[in-house]
């Protein structure tokens, strides 16, 4: 009976706490704003401190009852609790001093006013965090970026998702938030210490924490995914794991529960992948070479010279760093090519087809580190030009149809590691040569007509 009454009173805590806030703010306003302090004003201030103390005391008491209900974890409560208690003590002291007519000087008043204001802010803020969740304060602000991405993912744009691990970066942070408070190396509730991977696998007194490959035999998974009404459900207080946190945990155990499972392995499960992508605002698709390039935007002035020249160019991305360039004149000269080398890092696709291009003019190509598609078809080119293309590190696609290229070039093609496609229609290569090359380099696609 008494317990129930306490519980009821505890539930009134969030209501009652607003009283001392109101009283103390009124008291502070009166003592700051009213300059002429005759006796009646002073008495009003003293009464204000008294009410603040009394209502604060009741609120703290009710808070204590609420705390006893075990709704919240100790770690969440601490600051709120102690700053609340400090508030009560301070208001009591000041009231007593004022009631006993101690001669309080101005600076003491100022300091105490300031201190009480800070205390009420701290207590209120941490109380708010408990009921409204962490970060509630800034949530609604329009100019604060909604950042639900953990810091580790922020660098993902530069790094490949291969270097991010499911356990380390997705699962462990959850454990840290929900479990570590009770299951750490100082405080092993149930013999379970969840601060390290090995210990998590090992589990505690009740058995294996994680049975690799079998979530239903993994106690940790079972405890967080069972009905919340069960007495074994974890965590016993606070917010349970969310649906997708549980889903990722299950996927991880299903897939061997390894310490170093890269995030990219999530690709084997469409559902989990989209869940994670959405939650952490990630893009885990397999990326092509150019998507991983991280070039600075090109200086538009550099492109100025192309405006009236024989080139047509356009950007391939909104960051304005990657270019698709085409020669539109009838005949290309050395000068035209030298112009190109000014923007060599940014040329991703290059089309120099049908412009009387000569082998020797291609010697400049090795300077283009990011060139992935090169179209030089319908020119009087020979095997010599292929030697120049060899040094384009990242070339994926080479179009030399309608040239004089022969079987001799296959030797060089097989040395080009990144090459994926070669267009050789209407050139001098023979079906036999193609056949031979294909058996040696099955990964390279040769398109030579139908």
């Amino acid at each position: 009976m008494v317990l129930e009454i306490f519980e009821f009173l505890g539930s009134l805590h969030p209501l009652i706490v607003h009283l001392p806030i109101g009283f103390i703010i009124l008291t502070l306003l009166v003592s700051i704003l009213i300059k002429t302090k005759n006796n009646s004003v002073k008495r009003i201030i003293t009464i204000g401190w008294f009410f603040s103390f009394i209502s604060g005391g009741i609120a703290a008491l009710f808070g204590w009852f609420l705390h006893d209900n075990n709704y919240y974890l100790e770690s969440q409560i601490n600051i709120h609790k102690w700053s609340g208690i400090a508030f009560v003590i301070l208001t009591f002291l000041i009231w007593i001093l004022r009631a006993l007519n101690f001669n309080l000087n101005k600076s003491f008043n100022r300091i105490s006013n300031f201190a009480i204001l800070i205390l009420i802010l701290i207590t209120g803020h941490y109380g708010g965090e408990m009921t409204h969740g962490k970060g509630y304060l800034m949530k609604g602000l329009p100019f604060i970026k909604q950042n639900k991405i953990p810091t580790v993912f922020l660098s993902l744009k530069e790094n490949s998702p291969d270097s991010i691990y499911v356990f380390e970066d997705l699962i462990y942070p959850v454990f840290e938030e929900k479990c570590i408070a009770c299951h750490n190396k100082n405080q092993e509730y149930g013999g379970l210490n969840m601060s390290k991977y090995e210990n998590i696998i090992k589990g505690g007194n009740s058995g294996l924490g994680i049975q690799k490959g079998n979530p239903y035999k993994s106690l940790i998974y079972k405890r967080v995914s069972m009905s919340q009404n069960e007495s074994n459900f974890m965590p016993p207080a606070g917010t349970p794991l969310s649906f997708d946190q549980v889903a990722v945990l299950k996927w991880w155990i299903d897939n061997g529960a390894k310490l170093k499972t890269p995030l990219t392995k999530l690709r084997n499960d469409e559902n989990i992948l989209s869940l994670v992508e959405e939650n952490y605002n990630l893009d885990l698709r397999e990326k092509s070479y150019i998507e991983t390039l991280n070039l600075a935007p090109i200086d538009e002035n550099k492109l100025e010279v192309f405006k009236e020249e024989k080139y047509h160019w356009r950007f391939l991305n909104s960051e304005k760093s990657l270019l698709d360039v085409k020669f539109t004149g009838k005949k290309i000269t050395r000068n035209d090519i030298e112009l190109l080398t000014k923007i060599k890092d940014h040329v991703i696709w290059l089309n120099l087809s049908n412009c009387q291009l000569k082998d020797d003019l291609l010697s400049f190509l090795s300077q283009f580190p990011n060139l992935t598609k090169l179209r030089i078809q319908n020119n009087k080119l020979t095997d010599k030009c292929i030697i120049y293309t060899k040094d384009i590190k990242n070339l994926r696609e080479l179009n030399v149809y309608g040239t004089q290229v022969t079987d001799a070039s296959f030797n060089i093609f097989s040395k080009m590691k990144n090459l994926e496609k070669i267009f050789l229609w209407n050139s001098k290569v023979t079906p036999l040569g193609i056949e031979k090359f294909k058996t040696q380099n099955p990964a390279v696609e040769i398109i030579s007509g139908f």
Partner: protein
Amino acid sequence: MNCNHDHENKNYSRRDFLTRTSLGLGALSLGGLISPVDAYGNSNFLNLLESEKKRLPHFIPKAKRVIYLFQSGAPSQLDLFDYKPKLNEMFGQEVPSSIIGEQRLTGMSSGQNTFPIAGSLFNFKQHGNSGAWMSDLMPYTSKIVDELCFIKSMYTEAINHDPAMTMIQTGSELPGRPSIGSWLSYGLGTDNKNLPEFVVLITKGKSGQPIYSRLWGNGFLPSKHQGVQFRSGKDPVLYLDNPPGVTSTIRQEQLSSLKKLQKINHADIGDPEILTKISNYEMAYRMQTSVPEVMKISDEPDYIFDLYGEDSKNPGTFAANCILARKLAEKDVKFIQLYHRGWDQHSNLPRDIKKQAKETDQASAALIKDLKQRGLLEDTLVIWGGEFGRTNYSQGMLEMDNYGRDHHPRCFTIFMAGAGVKKGITLGATDDFGYNITERPVHIHDFQATLMHLLGVDHEKLTFKFQGRRYRLTDVHGNVVQEILS
């Protein structure tokens, strides 16, 4: 004469004036700060559009151009691609009422007393490594199925040709919106200064559903983004040539004087259409040399004509247009739209579809092969399809060797090939009766969103403000069909 044209300046309306002055100077300056039209009536709005466009492409494009082989009239998916042996088993029986349900039928067949199932008279076989089903109506296309991506679960709401075509071309059943090609021209600009970004070729001499020029219209976009029809024969673009006696130099002088006058006019009344007009004149002048060059197919080698079929030597046929499409693609025209009419077989389908298939099959396949061997298929998206599908029941009398099929918006098949699209796959499926979709429905807006995506455009971000709101091709719909992206 000095007229006060300010009331004609569309960038600064009376409403703007009142809004800006009613609250005094404070509002005037505030309005200047927050509105695209500044206090002196100079519009930054067009600049704003420009700055939005500067962010394009939104991501790295897979395709640089599109060739859309539009089969107007709606080819029967049940006789070409969507193999349904159940329909042959149940030939002549009534379509179960559980299949049609309460769904709407067209006025042309809803009055029928019976809905007899018409199984296809054509043989279906699986082809290629991908095992795609094709009927023997399309022997050439059957050979390249491993290059193709079929979507068998396309659907639309429109039940008649014009709204359905307007829908698939402009994203709305009601006329007045810009066509896909116009959106792309507006968003991505040109890759060849001498040719329009959006070219339309129509098979000559076909009858059937009418085709209106608004299908390639610019809607509310500046009119320089409209599609330009290239005709077969002497005058590919009407009124492009100089009249007899006018030389190229005279024409050039004329145009530059005209441009000066137009610029004065634009400074006065600020109508953006004047700029469009200037660029149209300039484009037309350049096209006087570029169009005859690209339209000349006589210097194509014989093996190319062999590839596209014997029709290809006759200008104006679908096959000849396919060669032109390839040539335009080589010239980096962004959107090349072909129309081939005559697929609307409400009756005598077996006879007529044979003719239609023969006219399009070889050339469509040849186009894909030809693009491939030239390396153009790497960055060209080819689309083949109509505006909706056809019913599984016969419209009119069902005979052992003859039937017709009515419009069927609930499912139809299209195929694509080329840039950024997976090869040799089939997406989606219909039920055993080929009536309803059972797997992965793809709406017209999804298709459009995917098309835009392949060209590097986020369909939700390419917008144009008109009549007080921002419009986009997919309106408020559309999801990219991720499954077919390679």
